[in-house]
Each structure stands twice: as C-alpha cells, then as structure tokens.
C-alpha cells in the first residue's frame, strides 16, 4: 500500500474512453502510471489539461473537488 499525495487521477468508464481523453489532451506520453486499464495517474497540471480539453469539446467529466 502506497500513499501518493497531490497527483491527478482519471477513472474512465472504459480503457477506450480513457485513451481517447488522453489523446484529445495530448497527454498519452505524460501518464505517470496506468494502475488499471481504465485508471491513469498524471501530474496535477496534466490533469487540468485533460479537463480543459474535454470541456472544450463540450464534454463535462465529473471533477471531484
């Protein structure tokens, strides 16, 4: 068990949806880890890029705050 604080986490419905989101934001190469096929860990700044890219396309993920 490891505690990672201040990281960005994305959990998608499917691996394909996650890949698409990362591709849209051009963040595929910036993923810190894929903990599961549908779960990616990124730096916080990169996660904001994903959110912004999705919103630009009219997609609104659930942003946990």
């Amino acid at each position: 068990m490891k505690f990672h604080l201040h990281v960005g986490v994305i959990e998608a419905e499917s691996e394909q949806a996650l890949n698409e989101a990362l591709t849209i934001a051009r963040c595929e190469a910036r993923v810190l880890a894929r903990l599961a096929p549908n779960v990616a860990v990124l730096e916080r700044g990169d996660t904001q890029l994903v959110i912004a890219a999705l919103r630009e396309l009219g997609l609104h993920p659930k942003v946990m705050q």
Partner: protein
Amino acid sequence: MKGAATDQGRGYRAGELDFLSVAEAVIERQPRVLKNGLPNLAFFRAANANLAQPDDEAQGHGFAQVEFWLTLARELGLTATDGDRLAITDAADEFFAQPLAARRDRLREAFLGARSLNDFALVGDLELPGLRKSGTVDTTTDAPGPEALAAARRRVLEFVLACAGETRVARLCQQVQREAPSFAIDHSDDGSWRRVFYRGIRERGGREEIERDGGWDRVEGAYIRWLVSLPFARLGWVDYDPARDAFEPLTTEDGDPIFEIVVQPNFEVLVLGDRLDAGTLWRLARFARPAMQGRVRRYMLEKKSFTDALGRGLSAGAILELLSSLSRRPLPQNVRFSLEEWSASSERMKIWPDALLVEAEGVDDLAALLPEAARRALGLARIGGGHMAAVAPDAALLRQHVPPRRAILDYSRRLPPAITPQGDLRLHAPAESLHLRARQTLELVARRQGADHWLLDPALTRAAATALGPDELRRRVEEALTRPLEQAHALALRAWSGEFAPAFAGSAEVFLCDSDEQAMLLEQVPEFAAWLDRKLGRGAYLLRHGGAAAVRKLLAGCGVTLRDHTRTDSQGRRP
C-alpha cells in the same frame, strides 16, 4: 417606517441578498486578483450591477458596497485566492447552510471586528490620497487604524441602538459630537492657537486637507452617515430611509421567506417572491450559473456548473428534489431528462485534479488494510484496480489516518531519487521505494529484467524522446537517478534520444598544414576552396572526395611538394 424590515429593499434579508450577489459574481466570473489583492475592475462593475441599489460609477466614489461585502466575505474566509483568481471556499457552503439569524450574527461580528476593512476609504464624501483602499492605514494620516476603527464602529452602534423611534442622522451626529467627539479621531489637541488639519483626509475632489475647526461634521459626520446607511442598515440593525436621512432601530424579525422558483424549458430558473432566502439561493447558485437580469434573480442550468456540483458531492437526486420543492409546478420533462442524462454521462469519467491516491500493491486489499473510519475521514472512494482515491486532504488530517511508518509521497514537491545505475546499462530500482515519477521514467527508457532490475533500451528511449523531447527526457532521467550514469552510458542515452546527431569514424581526405599564414594564403586560392568541405580547425581542412589528389596536383604545379604523412616534428620531418 413601520414594517420596513419586511420590505424587499430593507432589513438584513435585503442586505444579505447584496452579499449573496457579490458571492455569486465571484462564482460566475472567478475574477483575476491584481497585485493589490483586489479583483479586477470588470468584476467590480459586474458585481455592482447586481446590487439592489448599485453605486453610480460616474460619481467617482468607486464601488464601496461591493468592496464592503467582499471584505466581509474575506474576513469570514468565504473567499480565497486560488492561484491568481478569487474563488469561493467550502466555508461559504457552511456559512449559507446556517439559519438566517446565525448568518446575520456572523456577518455583524465580522464587520464590527474587521481588520482589513478601511471604512474611511469607503465613505463617498471623503478622499484619502495616497492610501490604499482596504489596506493598512498609513502613519501620515489621521484616518484611524484597524483597532481604532473597530472601537469606533462599536461606539457609534451603541449610540444608534440607544435611539428611540425615528431619528435623523444629523441629530445622531450632533449627539456623538457632543458626547464622544474623539470616538474615531483624537481631538484633544484641537483647541490650541494653531490651525490643525485632518492629515491625509480631504473632501472628494478637494485640493487641501480638511481643517479640524468646523470640519468634524464633514469627516466624522460623513463617516457616521456611511455607517448608518450601509453597514448598520444592510446588516439589519436599523431601518434607514435615504429620502428623509433618518433611521429607526430595527426590532422586528425578518419574517419567514416567501418565494418560489420557475424552472423554464430553456433551463432558466427564475426566482419570484418578496422575501428571498439567501441560504436557499446559494444552494441554487452552486449547481446553476447565476445570471442576474436587472432586478430579477435568474440561474441557468448548465452542464458545467451541474457536473461541478456533482464533483463537490451533490447528487443529481438531491438537486432535482431541491428544484421540485421550490417550484409549484412539476419540472419540465426535458429539464429533468437532461439533468439525469448529464449526471449519467459525468459518471462515465471521474477526474480528481488534486488527489490522494492509495495504491494497492500486489494482492493488497485496501478495505482490510485501511480502517473504515480512516477511509470515511479521508473521503476515499474505490476506483479501478482495487485502488482508492480522494480529494487531497489537509496534510495534518492525512497524517492522523495513515498507518504508522507508511511514507506519504508528496508530488507537489521534488521526490527523492529512486533508481541506481549499476555501472553498465542496468538499473536497480527497489519496488518499495519506487514512486510513480521514477516508475514512469523507467518505463520510458528501460525494459524490466526482474522484480527490481531494469535495462536501458535504445528503442524505448528513442520513442520517449520523440514524444517528450530529448531535453525533457534527460531531465527526468537525471532527476530519478541516485547518482549520474557513467560517461559512456550517458553518451549512449543522449545519442539514442537524438540529442546528438550520429558521429562519423573512418577514412577521410584531409589537408593539414602547420603555419597559420600558409593556411590563410591557401584559403584564398579558388581552386583549393573548390575542394573544401569544411574547416576543421587551425590548418586542418576536410576535403571532398578526390580532393587530396586534386590539391596535391594543384600545388605540384606551383612546385610545392606535399608530405605523405600526418605527424611532423618542428622541422617538418616524420617523427
């Protein structure tokens, strides 16, 4: 003025709606905070336009009401700077969740004790040249400091509350001047033979400071008028009538709220009623974008604000229930359907932009390893792969709930190097100390060779450098290593990443001479320059293919014989 407390424009309830409007403007605009700590002018204009009785910008008094409410919000911790923008905090939700009386008491106390509110700077008739609004008081001014202001507010409030029935503000000023002339500014030295001025205080537009003799009503009187007309009236201590410039202490309660909402098929939510409840409207503002239209309070149901609310923990069911409970008529079908659909679609992708991630390693069962109380306190939710995530908690709270001897890897800082080069292309990276950044770096440039062992790989490095750029890749590798790679391996890594273009080793045709003067003369010979590929250094030239024979022939024509070996002693002989 009887019954004025229940009037839409008077009493605490009306004042609180102005406070709500300013807070809603913060939600709507998320204004950029300038160097002076205040939001930009566009925000002030927008927030001012939403007030019940906006300040007139053309009068040059600024936006005293917006600044007043904004300062109270900051004093209560309801707003905070997030990066370079002003944002609402969780404390705002807690504030508006309280009953009306509790909210009123907190706002009143915040005003009476406010240290960051410079009242004199907000008085429309006065001007404090060289003094920042809402800032600390300069030592060269007679305007009271934070402590003196707090005492002055309470002193005037005592006088106000002691008044029975309707009282003109002018009469209150006379009474305060008679009984407590130095309630804000010391006047003990005013009676001397010399002329004394209010230092640093002018009438608006005036060129000179106000003289103390005869100036009390223009300074302290103006301040008292401001206190009565804005803080005391809007925070519900008095009912103030601007037409008569008179007030009456308020004793009646604000009464129960009476209002309803109309949810339109175009996703507009209109609020109708005489006595609105700021607490309920705040709940609306947290999932529907506030969009005031004149005096009409209007909220727009939009996907972004709705999904943001879901991310803060609200449920679609609770939102629909609130809308239904406030509306007399059933919600339009298309609105209900859309809200449910937005909720379902947002569940397809959840993003924690600043998270605590608890990673389950191997066969770890986090539900068994982490006590239920800790999971609940940290707000941990199970995600794919058996891991858990939560919004990043306060470090102290996290430390309370993390089992002893468990390291917390904080990615807001530089993490310790976790990869050790083995003297060749092999890397040692123990899994127990490997953080995600180091793991990512390893996966970018190396292949796993065993549980803790990796091998640098040219193909992977090349692909990673293409995606990230060679400089960024090298930075990451160097940051993750406990010690530098050996020179040859560092050279290899940088060559694989494309940082260095491929080098050449092999036979080539060169021209060498030992005298600078000889070299200079040769460079000016066009036939020689025609065979020159590039100059390698002083007296050293790389020739194009066939150049050696051509140059030799050229110089032989001049009677110059070339040597056939590269190294010479000082006399030009083969060593």
